């Protein structure tokens, strides 16, 4: 087992991080926007970004299953367990958020047309009350994901500045392999 992440794993981590933080910010902003063409545009970008995350989730999961991650840096067992739970939750949310968004869009009769080019199938038939349920789950999921990402980032900073270990550095180490 290598002590390092592969470059692909590092790239996927940071591309997804940037994309997800942008999507969370968009989601938060657009919920307060008045109906209009600007909101329509932002909502569409949000949908396309979410579908991109969904695609990258599969790429990343496949990569992770075929390329073992480095052994954890020595730390108390409870911290390791907690980290595992948080990472599992992060992966789960990469799947849950795009899917509930897609379900929401389908249920309110708005087919997702990825990049205005590729029409994606509706996951459920039009059903406004069900749409309201998916909207709720999707919005609360966004809040939960923001909290998990915050904790994830705080944990990384704690390892870096307090424990002074390699946890954050090895996710930034592009060279030495």
């Amino acid at each position, binding site marked *: 087992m290598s002590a390092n992440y592969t470059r692909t794993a590092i790239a996927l981590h940071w591309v997804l991080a940037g994309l997800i933080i942008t999507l969370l910010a968009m989601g938060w902003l657009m919920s307060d926007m008045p109906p209009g063409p600007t909101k329509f545009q932002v909502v569409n970008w949000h949908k396309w970004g979410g579908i991109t995350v969904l695609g990258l989730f599969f790429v990343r999961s496949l990569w992770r299953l075929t390329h073992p991650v480095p052994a954890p840096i020595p730390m108390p067992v409870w911290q390791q367990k907690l980290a595992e739970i948080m990472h599992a939750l992060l992966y789960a949310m990469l799947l849950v958020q795009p899917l509930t968004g897609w379900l929401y869009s389908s*249920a*309110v009769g708005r087919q997702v047309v990825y990049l205005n080019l590729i029409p994606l199938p509706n996951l459920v038939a039009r059903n406004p009350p069900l749409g309201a349920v998916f909207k709720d789950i999707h919005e609360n999921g966004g809040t939960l994901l923001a909290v998990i990402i915050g904790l994830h980032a705080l944990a990384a900073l704690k390892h870096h500045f307090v424990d002074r270990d390699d946890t954050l550095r090895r996710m930034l180490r592009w060279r030495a392999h």
Partner: protein
Amino acid sequence: MRVPAALATAAFAVAALAADSNIDLLHSSLVATFRQQAVSVDAVFRRFEGEIDYDPALPAATRATLSVDMTSLDISDEDTNAEVRKSVWFDTTRFPRATFRSTSVKPSAAGHFDAAGELTIKGQARPITVAVSVQRAGAALAYDGRFELSRRDFNIGDPTWNQVLDDKVLVHFHLQAASH
């Protein structure tokens, strides 16, 4: 309790309105499909009534009227539903109804006719012609048709939307009506 009384009055008013209507709402649909960039969205009208008087032996004598409750427009989410009721869109407070009244009907093939008539939305009357096909549906008759309209012709919509929302809207219907 005043509420049940009000409900009863409303129910009576609806029943009175529907008395002239031979359209079976349960088995009919009226939908306007609009296009936002690459996405087609269905706006569904939940309530309408009208009278279709069609005799297969005398199709040229067909007469049809339709009155649509614009406050029954449903685009599946509350924000959009509230938005399209505003004055710049359908102005449903001032114009709660859209109507169609046939002026002349020309039979084409068997079971098909072209209905010319006047369509009034938001107080704007425009002549239209709709190709309609007729089919038996049990004891009733089913009328299917579609036509395209321009939002601009009826002053529907905030112009700032025009960059992402098509001017053309496709209206399609399936109306089931008791035969006279």
